[in-house]
Every structure is written in C-alpha cells, then in structure tokens.
C-alpha cells in the first residue's frame, strides 16, 4: 500500500487507520525478526491509529491523518528512546520532539517505530549498528545499505508506508537504491535538523523514503521549511510553477564514470537514460573535473565535524556512563567502551585532520576543494537542469564482505557525497533489477531548492 492510496481509501471510509496498522503490525511480527529493520515497534501504535480514526470521524482532514511511518533512530520523538543504534544511548529517552516530528504530528501522521541504522549514521550498510545489521528484503544474505538501512528496508518490505532518514553522504539514497524504493536528500537547509543527532553539521540533511515519487514528495512537503530552532534552515521559494510536461536537460559527468563501477550498474544507467531520452528529455555530457576529489574531500570534512559533534557524549549529561578514577578516565572509559569500532575510527581520523600541524594540509585543503566542487556545480547548473549518476557503484553486497576494509566501504559513497558537499538536493529512483534480482538506483542532482525538478524526472521515469 502507498500513502496516497491509503489516504484516498480512508477519506472514502473504505479503510481505517486501525486496520492499516493492525495489518502492518502482523507483517512486522512476521518479517522483522529476519530483517531487523525496526529496533523498536511502539506499543501504542494501535492507540495512535484509533485516535486518528476518531479525529477523522469528527471531521478532521489532515494531510497525513492516520498514516503510519517509520522513523530513523537518530531523530528525536519526545518521551521515546532515541539510541542512534549505539550502546552510548541505548537507554536515552528524548526530552523533546524534533521539528520534523512536530510537523508530522501536526499533519496527523502516526509513528510505528524507530528503525535500525549504522551507529550515529556512520556507515553504508547498517552493519555498524550496535544491535545487529539490517538485512535486505530482496535477499536476506545481503546488506540493506546504510546508514538509514532500517528505514529503507521497512518501506521496501511493506512494514511502513513511508519513513524518514538522514543523509550526510548518501545515507538515504544508497539504502533506497539497495532496497528498491525512492529516497530523497533535500537541499541543505530545506528541512530543519532541530532534534536530529548531529553527525557532520555542514552536510547533514533529513529526508524521506517512499514506495513512489509522489509519497516521498508528500512527506517532504510536510517536513520542509524554515524553523527558528535551526539557523541553517530556509524557506523554499514559493511554488515554482514548472510545467509538468517540460522536457529537461540532463548532464552526465562521463569523466566520473570510469573506475570501480560494476558493469551491470553502468549498463542499467545507460538504458535508463536512453528511456528518458526517448520521451523527449535531452542527455548531454558535462565536465566536472574536481568531482574526482569529492570522496577524499568528504572523508576529511565529515570526520572532522563528527569528531567535534560527538564530543558531547561524555557520560556527564546523558547516555552511558562508566566510572573511572578521574574525570578524564570517566570520559575516556565511557567513550572507549560505548562507541563502536567505526565511530571510534572516525573520531580518531577527525581529530587527526584537525590537529595542529595537519590542519592546513588536510582540513584546510578539503574546505578549498569543496569550494571548487561547489563552483563547478554552479557553473554546470547554468547549462543543465539535472545531473545524473548511478546511486551506487554496485548493488547490495553480501553481509560481511566489506567490514574488514573501511576504505573499501567508503568508496561505495563515491556517487552520493558530491550532493552533500555542494548542498544540492538529490534523489535515488528504483530503476530495475540486476541478474541476481537486486535493485538498481538511478540518481539525480538538481540546483539548490529545486526538489520540484527531481520529482518531475522521477514521475517521468515511473511512466517509462
């Protein structure tokens, strides 16, 4: 069931939220032990559904009234546990609602549960969760992608109608690709981050998952917009009146499609673009010479920011606490014992690139390269409406295949990180299956605050 269809049926009185949630809970009970998409299913889900049904009977008609959603475990819902899939916050109860949650509640949505993720959103496979990895619904021996793997798997397996995730370097788009659903990373600033656990503040964005473009768009329209509690948030330009039948110009950075890409992924990418060309869109080659530095640039800036953001988990104010024989030992033991391997690796890397003597060579240089990339994007978007890339260089890989070599895991982010560095919106769209039956993802980038163009090309792809 998709959100738009469920809303239509509920409005017509053919479906109640209670029945919808009952069916979902039955399916979760059956599938979740295998998939591990949810870390917790909320005990009051049915109660929320009944309240929504009552409101509808009383004449309320909110845009998401009675629609059950899944929420990534790094987004705060007041009163409930938010663990970021870390031992550090295993028993932490959020003391307030994130702005996105407040907006979803005001729109009448209900929350089914919190979904699994890589610890503190650090990873591309959900294998870094302290509570076990999420399995891919299309093949349970493979990863669901990450870091929002639980949200993607829940939507793909029909365990939620839609979901929220966060995307710092591809954490919505790559699992969406691996699980065969739509995943949107909005423009930097388009959605408030108040109440999402900060990882890399100049890159983080909250976004939506849906089974269709229209569902992902509907959720985005509810959560977007300026928020006084997030100074980086901005109001989107009022409805950009784009003609839905307008033909778009799509740029392909051929110089970036050379190394490490699976031949089946590349072939699917070409076929998908050819289909879009057949319905009248124009495909053209573009040159983004600095894109080849994007991954190195990202893996300096992200850990640098994460190492400072995660300094707050010190055992003093909230979360786990391990007593040592001094305040320093309290900090070090709390952090040493409760952070997982990848989180510690990134904290160490971030501390290194920011430390005296290395700051200019690493962090300073990465910031300069980021500006080069931003300038090239700005120039390119003067010529084309969209930029196309595969979402990931491979389809979902077997669980455990890349855990021993962190650099191999990082290289999987090569096509997603440029959008975060440039702050532009991006979407991953399902585009068929490989010979093993695993989903491919086709990705588009648009200029700042032009999510409308992403939805437009998404609908176009759904039609072909």
């Amino acid at each position, binding site marked *: 069931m998709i959100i738009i269809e469920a809303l239509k049926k509920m409005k017509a009185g053919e479906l109640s939220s209670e029945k919808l949630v009952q069916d979902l809970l039955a399916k979760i009970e059956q599938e979740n032990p295998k998939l591990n998409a949810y870390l917790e299913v909320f005990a009051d889900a049915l109660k929320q559904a009944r309240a929504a049904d009552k409101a509808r009977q009383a004449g309320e008609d909110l845009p998401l009234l009675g629609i059950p959603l899944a929420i990534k475990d790094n987004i705060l819902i007041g009163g409930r546990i938010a663990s970021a899939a870390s031992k550090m916050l295993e028993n932490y109860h959020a003391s307030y609602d994130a702005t996105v949650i407040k907006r979803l509640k005001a729109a009448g949505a209900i929350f089914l549960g919190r979904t699994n993720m890589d610890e503190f959103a650090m990873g591309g496979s959900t294998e870094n969760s302290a509570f076990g990895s999420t399995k891919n619904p299309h093949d349970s021996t493979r990863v669901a992608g990450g870091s929002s793997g639980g949200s993607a798997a829940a939507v793909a397996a029909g365990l939620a109608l839609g979901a929220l995730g966060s995307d710092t370097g591809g954490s919505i788009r790559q699992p969406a690709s691996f699980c065969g659903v739509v995943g949107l990373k909005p423009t930097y600033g388009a959605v408030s981050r108040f109440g999402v656990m900060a990882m890399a503040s100049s890159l983080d964005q909250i976004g939506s998952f849906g089974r269709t473009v229209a569902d992902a768009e509907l959720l985005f329209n509810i959560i977007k917009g300026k928020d006084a509690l997030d100074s980086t948030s901005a109001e989107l330009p009022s409805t950009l009146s784009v003609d839905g039948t307008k033909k778009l110009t799509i740029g392909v950075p051929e110089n970036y499609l050379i190394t490490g890409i699976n031949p089946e992924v590349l072939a699917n990418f070409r076929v998908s673009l050819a289909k879009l060309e057949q319905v009248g869109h124009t495909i053209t080659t573009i040159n983004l010479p600095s894109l080849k530095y994007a991954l190195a640039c990202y*893996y300096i800036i992200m850990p640098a920011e994460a190492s400072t953001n995660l300094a707050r988990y010190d055992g003093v*104010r909230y979360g786990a606490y391990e007593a040592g024989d001094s*305040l320093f030992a309290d900090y070090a033991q709390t952090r040493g014992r409760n952070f997982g391997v990848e989180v510690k*690796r990134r904290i160490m890397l971030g501390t290194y690139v920011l430390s005296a003597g290395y700051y200019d060579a*690493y962090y*300073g*240089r990465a*910031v300069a390269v980021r*500006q080069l990339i931003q300038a090239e994007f700005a120039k390119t978007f003067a010529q084309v409406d969209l930029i196309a890339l595969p979402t990931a260089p491979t389809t979902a890989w077997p669980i455990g295949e890349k855990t021993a*070599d962190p650099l191999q895991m990082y290289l999987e982010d090569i096509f997603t990180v440029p959008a975060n560095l440039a702050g532009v919106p991006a979407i991953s769209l399902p585009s068929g299956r490989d010979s093993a039956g695993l989903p491919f993802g086709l990705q588009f980038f648009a200029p700042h605050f032009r999510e409308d163009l992403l939805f437009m090309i998404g609908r176009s792809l759904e039609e072909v």
Partner: protein
Amino acid sequence: MISREDIDNLANLARLALDDAQKESLIKDLDNILGYFEQLKEARVGEVKTENYLAINVMRADEANTGVEFRQNGNGQYIRVKKIL
C-alpha cells in the same frame, strides 16, 4: 606514517580509552585512509579563498536549557562531576 605515539596522542585528545589491539588496527586503517587523501595535493585550489567559505557558524544566545535529562550524575537541577584541579 602514523606511529603508535600519534595514536596515543590522538586517543588522549579525543578522550577515548583504547586497548592495544584497537590501537594497532587504527594505525593500519588511518595509514590506508590518509594515503587515499594524498590525491588532494594535486587539486588546483590556488584560486580558492577559504575566507569566502559559505558555511559559517550562526550562534544562538547562551541561555539555560532545562530540557536536558540529568539521569545519573545530578538531581535534576545540576550536574555533578569529579574534581578537575
């Protein structure tokens, strides 16, 4: 090349208690990852002025936050920490 001394120093700065095995694997991982960063040296950033960087900090007023959960180290009013001096 990252030395054992570097790792000890970084762990100290980052307030992370690590055992020997963790330190050894971090030496290997960081060397590998820093090696990948070498390519940034060839990027032509001569024209870029970092003072024009768009991402700037916007600070809010420093006000008391009563919404924090003081679970294990306080009584709800304040946080208790060990002596520093």
